[in-house]
């Protein structure tokens, strides 16, 4: 069984919103119709997006860290939005695990959005149907595109390659390896939705240097303790011989 998903590396994401704009561009031009915007250049702009990049500040000044956090439908393996849909418009594809909305069946009752703890479903205020990330289902299977471009628009657009796309049920896939080896985690695990999309945590490269690595304990010149022992801050001839 296949479960397509995105893996988003928070360590790499710089919060440029390229995934947001490319997602909107691709999907507003698609078969399903436009993704409406109201007052885009005026007061109170609002519109439909499949993908948002949010920003969080972790810690307290001066020890803070900015986390850019892209969020789109997580294509849960146990999606709570699907069983509640009264019309069957919201469904999860058996063949690749993508959660989709059939815009021709959706009655716009918003119950699926209530049933999603992640807030990734947005009602289009003009078409009055529920919209959400499709994992660019109209791109990833398109034979007319070169094989390297059969990826979601957001993945293609990311300048830092923070977004990986693939089958998380295939243990050899790039995404499975990333989850396994770089500490991939799911959002809000407390609700048992088993999101397919995973996030890779922020990582810091740190080296640990012990005191004996800075100062040779077995320095033969010092064994008898006869030589002067200048302070470590004093200039040395070659970093070793003085002390």
């Amino acid at each position: 069984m296949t479960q397509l998903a995105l893996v988003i590396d928070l360590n790499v994401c710089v919060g440029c919103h390229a995934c947001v704009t490319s997602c909107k561009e691709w999907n507003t031009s698609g078969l399903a119709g436009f993704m409406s915007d109201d007052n885009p250049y005026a007061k109170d702009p609002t519109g439909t997006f499949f993908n948002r990049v949010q920003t969080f500040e972790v810690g307290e000044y001066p020890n803070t860290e900015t986390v850019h956090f892209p969020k789109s439908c997580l294509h849960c393996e146990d999606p709570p939005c699907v069983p509640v849909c009264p019309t069957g418009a919201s469904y999860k594809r058996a063949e690749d695990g993508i959660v989709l909305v059939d815009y021709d069946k959706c009655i716009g009752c918003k119950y699926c959005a209530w049933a999603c703890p992640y807030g990734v479903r947005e009602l289009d205020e003009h078409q009055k149907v529920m919209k959400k990330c499709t994992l660019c289902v109209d791109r990833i299977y398109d034979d007319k595109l070169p094989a390297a471009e059969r990826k979601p628009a957001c993945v293609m657009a990311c300048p830092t390659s923070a977004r990986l796309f693939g089958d998380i049920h295939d243990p050899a896939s790039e995404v499975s390896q990333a989850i396994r080896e770089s500490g991939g985690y799911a959002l809000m695990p407390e609700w048992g939705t088993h999101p397919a999309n995973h996030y890779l945590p922020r990582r810091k490269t740190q080296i640990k240097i012990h005191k004996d690595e800075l100062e040779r304990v077995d320095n033969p010149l010092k064994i008898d303790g006869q030589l002067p022992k200048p302070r470590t801050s004093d200039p040395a001839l070659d970093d070793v011989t003085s002390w």
Partner: protein
Amino acid sequence: MHPAFSVIFLTTLIGAGQGLFLALYGVETGAHFDLIAPAPPVFFGGGCVLSAVLLVAGLAASFFHLGHPERAWRSAAMWRTSWLSREVIVLPAFIAAVFVYGTAHYLGSGASGWIGAFATVLCVALFVCTGMIYACLEFLQEWHTPLTLINFFLLGTASGSMLAAAFAAFTATQLLEPLGVAAVTVTALALVMRVAALARNARIRPKSSLQTAIGVKHPRIAQKSQGLMGGSFNTREFFHGKGMRLVRAVKWIFLLLAFPVPALLAIVGLRQGMAALLVLAFTVQFLGLVAERWFFFAQARHPQNLYYEVIS
């Protein structure tokens, strides 16, 4: 959650309609076992018309909630998994059953008892469906409790039996006493359970936090941007948008208007035999229940709001 008046009127109107039907069938059953005086056909016929009007009005209100009401017929499809779909099936079935029940009384058919029993099953099923639409959403912790079902049942029954008492004042005065006592009793019981729900919800500890929402282990996380400069569906649909003072005020308004005020009005109305007071009692209680349902939605905190706390 954002309280939508379409859903507020749907649930309060059908609750009153269901409660009224239960009162009618209660009267028939009680009279069958000689516990209370029998009622004239006009009480059942008129009562069924009233109940059906309330149910149809509730059904009509629900259409205003939909983006595509013309596709509403599709919503009967997923009854295997969706409580909303089940409600969509049971509500019209119950309206039809009330219609048949009223017709049976109008025609003087002896089968009305059995029809009423069948309609009662549908009535209870409808209460369960309506309540479960909210109670089944486990991460809306304020709703995910059996008290949601119990309160939908009790509040609907209280309002319906109050209406039955008011209606009896015009059509069957011999039933005023038992129906009035029933209405006040159910109202008192509903108050107890609603306060129990309030007490439970005041002690909820949210399972989700910003830490689990973005998966960062740190006690201090603050949102700086939600990825939009104005509002979005997510900022409008999941928050009532009112100050906490108003929300608290609505709580006290419904605690007064839905329970003690109509109960007192009903008691005085019964003592004095004033039908107008009973009508007033029902009206005040219905307004109180509208406030109660508004508060029910406003109080529910959706975990998605964790992602939408700051616009910048």
